[in-house]
């Protein structure tokens, strides 16, 4: 059984200018103990995707179609009470910029314990005991659960966040740029920790970032997102060595390899399309260096390229692999 299957998810925002199709037909799946990296430019819909899974969208955002199957239960169809009872118990999220993700006037241990009390019906004492265990799991002294967030460094806060995310043994953890605000050393530590824990605890991990380089070491699969759609998905090898979408290729060339001279990565020229308007043909066409007339007319479908490798491009077989 697959742990999580997202099928043709459509999440739109109701704005004053019309429907904004932030996520428009996204599909991917995730297995137990597997890590999926979700990558793409700012605004391509990564966070919206994550929020859709636990139905935490702001009130102008709505899921207009698709299924989110968690162990065969469609989360989209659950009522408010049902989805609430699944949050954190089944899926927990470490948010983007989570430097403020902890309540400043509440002890960190209490913030972990409250989730355990809510979902596991534990007593306060048991819950705090659990918080201590979790701190040890994320390699922090257990007595620090009595500290307030401001007494932690950025890296420690993020460890505390991970401890909190693990509180109710979730099946899936979503990390939305969990390391963006941290320096490189700490970033590596946190990513290693996440990788170790998801393997040990057999959790599914979705790691969201706009930095492809960190996914190569941490994830099993990578999904490349562009303008609300997944344009290419596959194993690390598929993505890096059998690149099948021009956008992926450009993303890869955007990050300088270790060892090579550190140069400012060239940005991909052009801007993503306006998702308020219907797009004819391929949404990447205006920025694509490989576009052909058919790309303007027909939207490329996601096609299998062997194994679990899929790409949505009319010329997916012709993308050159050297960088």
């Amino acid at each position, binding site marked *: 059984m697959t742990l999580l299957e997202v099928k043709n998810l459509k999440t739109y925002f109701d704005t004053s200018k019309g429907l904004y199709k932030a996520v428009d037909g996204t599909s991917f799946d995730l297995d137990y103990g597997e890590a999926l990296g979700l990558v793409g430019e700012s605004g391509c819909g990564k966070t919206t995707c994550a929020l859709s899974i636990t139905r935490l969208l702001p009130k102008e955002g709505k899921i207009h179609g698709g299924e989110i199957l968690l162990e065969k239960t469609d989360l989209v169809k659950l009522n408010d009470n049902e989805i609430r009872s699944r*949050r954190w118990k089944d899926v927990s999220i470490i948010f983007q910029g989570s430097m403020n993700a902890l309540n*400043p006037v509440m002890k960190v241990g209490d913030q972990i314990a409250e989730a355990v009390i809510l979902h596991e019906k534990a007593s306060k004492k048991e819950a705090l005991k659990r918080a201590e265990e979790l701190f040890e799991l994320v390699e922090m002294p257990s007595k620090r659960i009595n500290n307030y967030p401001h007494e932690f460094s950025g890296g420690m806060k993020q460890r505390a966040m991970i401890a909190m995310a693990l509180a109710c043994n979730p099946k899936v953890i979503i990390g939305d740029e969990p390391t963006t605000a941290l320096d490189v050393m700490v970033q590596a530590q946190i990513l290693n920790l996440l990788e170790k824990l998801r393997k040990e605890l057999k959790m599914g991990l979705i790691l969201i970032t706009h930095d492809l380089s960190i996914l190569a070491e941490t994830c099993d699969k990578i999904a490349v997102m562009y303008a609300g759609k997944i344009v290419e998905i596959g194993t690390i090898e598929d993505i890096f060595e059998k690149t099948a979408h021009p956008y992926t290729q450009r993303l890869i060339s955007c990050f300088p390899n270790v060892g090579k001279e550190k140069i400012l990565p060239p940005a991909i020229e052009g801007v993503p399309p306006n998702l308020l308007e219907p797009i004819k043909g391929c949404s990447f066409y205006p920025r694509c260096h490989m576009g052909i007339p058919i790309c303007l007319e027909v939207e490329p479908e996601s096609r299998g390229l062997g194994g679990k490798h899929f790409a949505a491009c009319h010329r997916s077989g012709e993308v050159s692999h050297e960088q």
Partner: protein
Amino acid sequence: MTRKMIVRKLLYAMLTILVVLVFNYILFRVLPGNPLSMMMRNPRATPETIAAVKEFYGLDQPWYLQFFTYFKHLAQGDLGISFVYKAPVADVVAQKILPTVLMVGLAEIVAIVVGIFLGIIAAWKRGTKLDVATLSFSLVTYSVPTFWLGMILVVLFSVQLKIFPTSGMFTPGKDFATTAAMLQDLFRHLALPVLTMSLVLIGQYALTMRNTLMDVLSEDYITTARAKGFRERYILKKHALPNAMLPMITIIAINIGFVVAGAIQVETIFSWPGLGRLMYEALRARDYPLLQGVFLLVTLSVVLANVLADITYSYIDPRVRN
């Protein structure tokens, strides 16, 4: 907060009071006019009378001597003699403290409770009709002139409906058989001033509460709490309000400090025998010793309220504690 920090705060507070005292003293000497200039306009005042009055109040001495005398007496709890009341300032002021604290204190409590409640509702239901209604109510009461509001309430409740008296603290010349009867009379007199005063104050509390709560509700830790599966009510109570109350405490403390200063306008409209009206009268009569006495009291209460706010704050906000 450590004991050392509290001691340091108190020392700062004392220093503040001292500076304000000196400033007040100088201010009053610089202001034009004194009781003598008024008296001298009276054609029946003989030069002897004027000289006697001058000597009695110590106004014949050079300014620096007056200055030291003032502080010497102050240290002994002697605030001087009121020019107008011809009685010790301390006694005059003391009589007015209770009515003011009663009226303004009550109004503050009403305003804080109602204002915070309205602010929470508005932030909670933001964008709805309820929010708009609360917001309009707050803005109107916040901006309406106190005097005008008082008059409207008098016309409505005293003239039209005849439920509440228009002025004073007790019905004049009435003997009360029981304490209960007396209290009832007191509360009937309190109603309109307290209502006016709290209406004036509610807006500020409601607007501040609404804004801070809305800011807090958009913080990341609120999203985290939602992601943890908590109900909105729980999130409001356990996560949002403790954070939103922090700025409120500062505002409440500042306003509480001014409770003693009373409400010049409200006390004047309703002839409430409090410090606000006393201050107004003292100002008009250029009664320096009395004014200084009232100012001293106001300074003390404002500074004290701030110290209390700091200490309270440090108990609620762990970031301030160490």
